[in-house]
């Protein structure tokens, strides 16, 4: 494991783990967020038959870098009527919540920030950090739209946590572990050992599991879209009614932090789906390092597959954003409580019966 190696290398556990924690932040979250924003704009442009950003650098590749350079120079405006301490604290809380979730993500067999046994359950718990942050931001802005956006956002996140957790519980019934690293390890070798295809179970059970596991994934994916406030569940920041939702009053670097946290959260939920249903860091067709006999290539490949699969799901989220219209509040609640939750319940019982025999 890289964190333990670093701790030994520096002779101090704290420094070693701190540097290990900095790896996903600087090597993945920042570059990913930059290019996810760019990808989002390009995807939307492609879907609406536009060109999208194309001025800064070749094909506009440096557009978001220019944007972040601009944001860092922007004046930081705190409205006079805002609640200053909460207003300043909100970006810290939101980003800390997002980044704490990265601690339990297995990037490869040799890198996981913190190998806790509670894995997914822990990630769902720290997502309540973002709820607190959203409420703080919405309330501190002292603005009708922020407050309303925050309330909607919170109601939506908590409602959809129920089907998301139920889908995870039903998957956990088959898997028998909550630790994402262990779950990834189980889905070894080829892609038919992914849990969405029944996992490394043998016999007729495997084929029976395919449909319930797919349903569990779909329920989790829809619920996770709502958890990160993406279209079709973006009424919390519906541009046409609420200006920008809970972060309307934020400018400059503080606004950039909300943006970073949003894109970070998109990756976290995708990474959970990938780890549970799509094999985590396992390669779908065996490792090049194995066939070439180069052992150090395997972890590199694992990191690649994990990030690739995660980014692919993020791309699906973007695709959905520009394809589907926004749901109304009553439809939102209906989808959650009358469709997803009962289906998740039935699916859970179904999976329970299948795994039993």
């Amino acid at each position, binding site marked *: 494991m890289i964190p333990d190696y670093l701790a030994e290398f520096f002779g101090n556990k704290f420094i070693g783990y701190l540097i290990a924690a900095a790896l996903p932040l600087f090597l993945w979250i920042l570059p990913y967020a930059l290019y996810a924003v760019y990808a989002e704009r390009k995807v939307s442009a492609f879907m609406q038959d536009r060109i999208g950003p194309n001025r800064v650098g070749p094909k506009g590749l440096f557009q978001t870098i220019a944007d972040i350079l601009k944001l860092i120079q922007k004046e930081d405006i705190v409205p006079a009527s805002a609640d200053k301490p*909460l207003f300043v604290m909100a970006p810290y809380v939101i980003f800390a919540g997002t980044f704490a979730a990265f601690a339990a993500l297995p990037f490869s067999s040799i890198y996981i920030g913190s190998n*806790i*046994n*509670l894995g997914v*359950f*822990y990630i*769902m*718990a*720290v*997502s*309540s950090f973002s*709820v*607190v942050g959203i*409420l*703080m931001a919405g*309330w501190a802005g002292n603005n009708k739209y922020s407050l309303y956006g925050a*309330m909607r956002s*919170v*109601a939506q996140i*908590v409602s959809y*946590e129920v089907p998301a957790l139920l889908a995870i519980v039903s998957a956990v019934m088959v898997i028998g572990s*909550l630790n994402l690293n262990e779950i990834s390890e189980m889905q070894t070798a080829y892609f038919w050992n992914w849990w969405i295809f029944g996992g490394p179970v043998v016999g007729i059970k495997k084929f029976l599991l395919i449909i319930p596991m797919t349903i569990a994934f779909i329920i989790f994916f829809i619920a996770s879209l709502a958890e990160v406030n993406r279209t079709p569940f973006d009424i919390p920041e519906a541009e046409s009614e609420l200006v920008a939702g809970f972060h309307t009053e934020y400018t400059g670097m503080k606004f950039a932090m909300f943006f970073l946290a949003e894109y970070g959260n998109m990756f976290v939920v995708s990474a959970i789906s990938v780890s549970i249903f799509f094999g985590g860091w396992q390669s779908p067709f065996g490792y090049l390092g194995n066939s070439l006999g180069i052992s150090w290539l395997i972890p590199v490949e694992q990191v690649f597959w994990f990030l690739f699969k995660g980014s692919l799901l993020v791309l699906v989220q973007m695709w959905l954003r520009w394809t589907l219209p926004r749901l109304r509040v009553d439809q939102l609640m209906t989808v959650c409580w009358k469709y997803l939750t009962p289906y998740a319940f039935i699916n859970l019982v179904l999976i329970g019966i299948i795994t039993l025999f």
Partner: protein
Amino acid sequence: MTLEQITFIILALIGLTSALMLIIQKNPVYSVLLLILHFFALAGFYLLLNAQFIAVLQILVYAGAIMVLFVFVIMLLNLSNEEALKDPFNLRKIIASIFGVVLILQFGVFFFIKAKDDLNVTISPNSIEAGSIKKISEVLFSTYLIPFEVTSFILLVGIIAAIVLAKRKFE
């Protein structure tokens, strides 16, 4: 001092300060946020005792769900100005302070007379095992099976009561 003791003192300071501020605070939204800070400090205590599952549960249920509930109640009752919270009826305060003094005395008796010698509890080495989720599930299915099933009834009663009360109170 060991690392554990330092962590304990820091957590105790956070927990006590946030609890105290929570009562003194006039702004209800600040009170709720301080309450969450207090819950996080409690979760830290559970972690120190190696009760990982309980700690995560504490964050998920209390800092997540209970907090949302409180915020919605504040928004619903519109307690923006502290004037609405002022209680002109002073008998209530007197009764409350009597109960408070009795409670403090009780704690004092418990900690300084009764449990004086039991305070230096050392964490047994197999407590890491005992706090893990697998162990909890095993205990839940053998010793505490009936309480587990009864919990679902309590939750059912809770759901029905919540709906009936919400309807009667606000509609």
